[in-house]
C-alpha cells in the first residue's frame, strides 16, 4: 500500500458525528437477507475462499503464547493451503499467503524473525495501546506502539478508549487516536472499536467516523475478548460509515471484522457484505482483513472437498 493511499484523517466534524443514527431492526434485517440474496457455489466458492485466505490476519492473542507457537503460526500464514490443493485449484503460482500474523507486542520479534527467514512478505501486526481493555495511562499506551513498531511490526491494532466513546467525549477520542496514528509512523493503524462495549449501533457508527477522521487506516470491530464481537449487523454499520466517509472525503478506509468468524460460510458472508455495501475495491487484503485463528482450518477443509470431492480428517491438514 503506497503512502499516498493512506487515510490522512480530517478535522473532527462534530456536527456530522452527532447527526448519525442507526436503526438496529433495519440493520439486522439487511444483514439477515444479505446471505439469502447472494451465494457463491462450486468453482466460484473455491475462488472466493482462496481470496478469504489472503485476507486473514492469522491471530494468536493468548496469555500462554510463546515464541514456539507464534513461529508455527507464521509458518501456517506463509503456507495457508496445502500445495496439492493449490495445484488442484490451478493456483500454485498465485503466492497465496495470509494477510498478516497478529500477535501481542512481546511476540513481535519472534514473528518478524520467522517470517523474514521464510522469505515471505507477510506483515506482522501487533495489538497495542493496552489491549484489550485500553484502561491504561495514555503515555504507556502510546509507548507500546512505538516499541512494537521498533520491533518490526508493520501494522498496529490499537484499541479505542471506550470510556470516551460511552460518554460522548468525541474530541478526546479524536485527539487520542490521532496521537496514536502519529506514533504508528509508517505502520498501518487499525482502530479496534470494541463494539461489544459500546452499547448501541449509533455509538458504533459515531466511533467509526471519529476513528476515521483521526486517521485510522482500518477500523476493526473487536478485540475478540468482548461479549459481542464481529457480527454481520455490526459490520454493516461500520461499512456504511466507511462508505459515508469515502463519499465525503474520497478516502477509502479498510475494514477488519475480528472475533467469532470460524467457518468458511462466515468468511463468504463477510465477503458478500463487503462486495454489496462497499464494492469490489474492498475485496482484497489492502482494504479488508478478517481477524481469526480457527477459520483457516475450515476453509482448507472446504477447499480439500472442492478438489477431491470428499471431506478430509482434521488431522490431515497442517495445524496452525
Amino acid at each position: 500500500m503506497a503512502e499516498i493511499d493512506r487515510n490522512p484523517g480530517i478535522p473532527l466534524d462534530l456536527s456530522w458525528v452527532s447527526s448519525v443514527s442507526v436503526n438496529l431492526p433495519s440493520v439486522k434485517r439487511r444483514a439477515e437477507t444479505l446471505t439469502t440474496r447472494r451465494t457463491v457455489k462450486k468453482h466460484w466458492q473455491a475462488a472466493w475462499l482462496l481470496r478469504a485466505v489472503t485476507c486473514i490476519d492469522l491471530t494468536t492473542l493468548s496469555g500462554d503464547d510463546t515464541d514456539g507457537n507464534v513461529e508455527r503460526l507464521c509458518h501456517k500464514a506463509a503456507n495457508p493451503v496445502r500445495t496439492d490443493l493449490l495445484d488442484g485449484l490451478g493456483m500454485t503460482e498465485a503466492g497465496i499467503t495470509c494477510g498478516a500474523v497478529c500477535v501481542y507486542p512481546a511476540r513481535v520479534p519472534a514473528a518478524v524473525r520467522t517470517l523474514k527467514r521464510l522469505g515471505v512478505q507477510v506483515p506482522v501486526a501487533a495489538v497495542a495501546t493496552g489491549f484489550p481493555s485500553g484502561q491504561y495511562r495514555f503515555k504507556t499506551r502510546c509507548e507500546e506502539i512505538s516499541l512494537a513498531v521498533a520491533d518490526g511490526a508493520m501494522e498496529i491494532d490499537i484499541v479505542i478508549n471506550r470510556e470516551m466513546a460511552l460518554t460522548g467525549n468525541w474530541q478526546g477520542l479524536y485527539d487520542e487516536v490521532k496521537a496514536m496514528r502519529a506514533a504508528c509512523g509508517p505502520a498501518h493503524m487499525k482502530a479496534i472499536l470494541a463494539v461489544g462495549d459500546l452499547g448501541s449501533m449509533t455509538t458504533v457508527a459515531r466511533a467509526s467516523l471519529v476513528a476515521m477522521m483521526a486517521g485510522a487506516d482500518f477500523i476493526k470491530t473487536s478485540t475478540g475478548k468482548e461479549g459481542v464481537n464481529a457480527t454481520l449487523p455490526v459490520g454493516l454499520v461500520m461499512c456504511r460509515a466507511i462508505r459515508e466517509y469515502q463519499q465525503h472525503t474520497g478516502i477509502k478506509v479498510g475494514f477488519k471484522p475480528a472475533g467469532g468468524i470460524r467457518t468458511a460460510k462466515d468468511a463468504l458472508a463477510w465477503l458478500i457484505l463487503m462486495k454489496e455495501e462497499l464494492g469490489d475495491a474492498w475485496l482484497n487484503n489492502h482494504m479488508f482483513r478478517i481477524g481469526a485463528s480457527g477459520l483457516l482450518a475450515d476453509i482448507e477443509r472446504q477447499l480439500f472437498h472442492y478438489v477431491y470431492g470428499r471431506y478430509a480428517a482434521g488431522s490431515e491438514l497442517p495445524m496452525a
Partner: protein
Amino acid sequence: MRTLVLATLTQDINMAGVVGINKAQGKPTISQIFNTMEYGPAPEDDKVAQAWLDSHHGKFGHFINNKWVLPDDRKTYDTRDPCKDRVLASTIQGTQQDVDQAVGAAREAYVSWSKLSGHARARHLYSIARHIQKHSRLLAVVEALDNGKTVRETRDCDIPLVARHLYYHAGWAQLKDTHMQGWKAIGVVGAIVPWNFPVMLLAWKVCPALAMGNTVVLKPATSTRLSALLFAEICAEAGLPAGVFNVVTGGGAMGTQLATHQDVDKVAFTGSTEVGQILRRATAGTGKKLSLELGGKSPVVVFESADLDSAVEGVVDAIWFNQGQVCSAGSRLLVQESVFSRFIDKLKHRMSSLRLGSSMDKTADMGAVIDDGQRKAIAQYVDEARRHGAQIHQVEAPPGCYYPPTLITGVSTTSRCVIEEIFGPVLVAMSFRTAKEAIALANNSIYGLGASVFTEKMTLGIEVARMIKAGAVWINCHNMFDAAAGFGGYKQSGYGRDGGKEGLYEYIKPSWEGQQRFTPPNMNLEKFGATYMADGPSLTPSTPQIVSGDGTLPRVDRTYKLYYGGAQKRPDANYCRVVKDATGKAYALVGESNRKDVRNAVEAAGKAQSGWERRSGFNRSQILYYIGENLEQRREEFISHLTTVTGCKDVEAAAEVDCTVERLFHWAALCDKHGGEVQETQVYGTVLRVHEAVGVVGVACPDQRPLLAFVSLVAPAVARGSTVVVIPSQSYPTLALSLYQVLETSDLPGGVINILTGNTDHITKYLTEHQDIQAMWYFGSLAGSKFVEHTSAVNLKRTWVNYGRQRNWADQDEGAGQEFLYQATQVKNVWLTAGDIFAN
C-alpha cells in the same frame, strides 16, 4: 420445435445478463474469479418440481372432492414460466358446469364440516400445516417457476407465510367455540385470488374460512394455477375431508360465475380495484358477504430524522419485492426536502447492485414480471413519464419478460405514474417540507392499503402513522406480513382484512342471523330514488291550530328543520312533507331534503370528523352519557310522542325510550374500550391493531322503533369517532328531530350527527353516490339494499344493508351486538419494530 430453439436461446442470453460471463467463452478459471471476484451461477434445482409435473403428464384439471376432475371437452390453457418463456403444463378452462360441481361439493361438505368441533377443524388445519412444511421446497419451486418470482422469495416469504397462516388459524379453529361466541360460519366461500402471490393469498382466504367452519371453492388466477392445485393435493394428502376445499381453474368470466353462484354465501377477493368494483355490482342485493383486498399506491415517507441507509433498504423492500407486483408496494416515495438529493443518490447507488435473473437463480434480487402484457403496461407508464420530461433512472435488465428497477423523479401529484397503480418495479419520488405536508401528500390518493414511515423520532413516527389513512403502516420497514396482523385497505383499496382476529369477521355472521339469500329485484338503478315529491297544505291537523279560548289565537307553530353542522337548517328547495300521526291526521311538517342538503350535510360531517375522532374516548363517552341523561329527563315527552305518531301502547313506548337510554349507556361505555390490541406477530417489537373510525357514515333508519333504531345505529358510529349523516325513519321522523334539541343541550359538537328528513330513497341515492362518505348503512327495502351495494362500488365505500329484513332492535345481540363494533370501525395495523440493544 421452433419455439424450443428460441427458448433455449433466450435462456442463454438471460444467463449472460445475470452472471456477466458469456457462456460461450466457457467457465472462468479459479484464478480469473479470484481476480474479478464475480458472482457465479447458483441455480436452484427444479427436478422435483419437474417430476411432479411429469407425474401429472403435464396436464391438470380441477380438484374437486379430493379428486382430479378433467372433463373432456374443455378448452385448455398453457401455464408458462415467464422467465424462460416455456410451457410448464396444460390446465383447463372451467365452465359453469364445473363451477356448479365444485360449489355442489362444497355445499355438501359444509353440512358435516360446519358441525365439526373447533378442535376437529384445528386438527385438520394443523395437519395441512405440517404437510405444507414437508412439501415446502416443492411448493416454493413450483410457485417460482409458475410466477417468475425468485425462489428466494417463495422459499423465505411466500411458503413460510402459508404455513404460518395455517398454524395461526388452526389456533382460531380451536378457539372458535370459546372465543368467538355469538358468531357462526356463513356457508360456501368463493375465493378469487390474483397471480402475484398465488399460494400465499390462497392461504389468507382459505385458512380463516375453514377455521370458522366454511367450505371453499377457489379460483386461482388465470396465469398462476399450479401452486393452488398442488396445495389442494397436499390438503387431500393431509386428510382434509372431500369437498371442504376445491379448486376450479378458468378465466376471468369463470370468476364471476363463481362469485354469483346462488349457492355461494361469501365472496373473498384479492385483485384489482376494477374487478373489485365489478364483483361488488354483480353481487349487489344477493345477501352474499363480500371482502375486497384491492389496489394501492402506498407512500413511503422518509424524514430527515431517518437512518437514511436503512430507509434505502426499506425502499428496496417496498418496491422491489416481488418485482413491485405487490398490492401494498411502496411505490410513492416522499422524502423530506432537506435530505432529498442525498437520499436519491444513496438510492441510485443501491439500485446499481440489484440483480435480475431467472426465478431459479439464487443470487437474483428480482425475477421476471408475470407476462409480456404486464411488462408492456409497466413500460407504457415509464415511457409516458419520460415523454413528459421526468427523469428516469434504471438499471440493466436481461432481455425477456424482465422489467428493470426504476426510479422516476421530476414528477408531481398530477402525473399519471404518481396517481395510478403501476404494479411493477417503478418508484416515483417527490419531496415534502414538513410532516403536515407529508401526511397530506401521503393521503392524496384514492387508495389506502399500506404506508411506511422512516424516522428515528418515535413521537413523529407514531403521529404520522396515526394520520395516514391506510390499513397497514410500517414504521422503519415496509411489506412486513404475519398471520396475526390483518392486511387490508382503507378507501378504494377495499374492505375486510386478511389475517388477525379482525380477519375472522369476514368468514362469520351473527348467530341469530338466518340464511342471507335474496333474489335481487330487477330494477332500473338509474331511476332509484331519482325524484322526490313534497306535500301541499293539510286541512286535517291532529291538534287544532287555533288554541285560544276566544278562538282567535293560533298555536305557536313547532318547526322541524333539517339539522346539520350543529344548526337547524331550512331545506334547500324549501319543500316540506306532512307527517301523519297514528290516526292519519297531519302531525307535523318536516323538511324535504334534496341533493344539495346532502352535499351540505356531508360537508359538515366531513369537517367535524377528524376533530371528533381525535377527542379522547372519555370525552366522547361523556357526551353520549349526557345525551342519555337529557333524554331521560324528557322521557314522558318522548313516550307521548311515540304513542301519538306510531299508535303504540304507552308501555311499549316507555320500553323503547328506556331501551334507548340503555343503548346510549352501552355505547358510551364502549367509547374508551375498543381502541385495539397488541398483535402477536413474529416481529420483535409491537404491532398495534388500532380500531379507527370509519369516517363519515351515511345511515338510513328503518320505520320500526323510530327512536331506538335511530340511536342504535347512530350511537356506535359516533362512539367510535365517526360522524353521521342520518336519515331518520321516513314515516316517523319527528322523534329524531325532537332529539336534536337533546343533542344541542348535550355538548355534542356541530357536524357529528346530521339529520336529513324527507324521502329515504332519494336521500339514500345521493348519500351512496357521494364519494366523500366512507360507509353507507341502509335499513330499508331489498331494492334499496341492492341499490346501495351496487352504487357503493363507485368509491368502494363499505356498506351494511338489511335486504329488507327487520331485526329486533330491542334485543341486545340484534340491536347492539359485536356486529355494530365491526361496522363502526376499520382496522389499521401499525408495525413498530423495536430494538436498540445489541450487546452490553
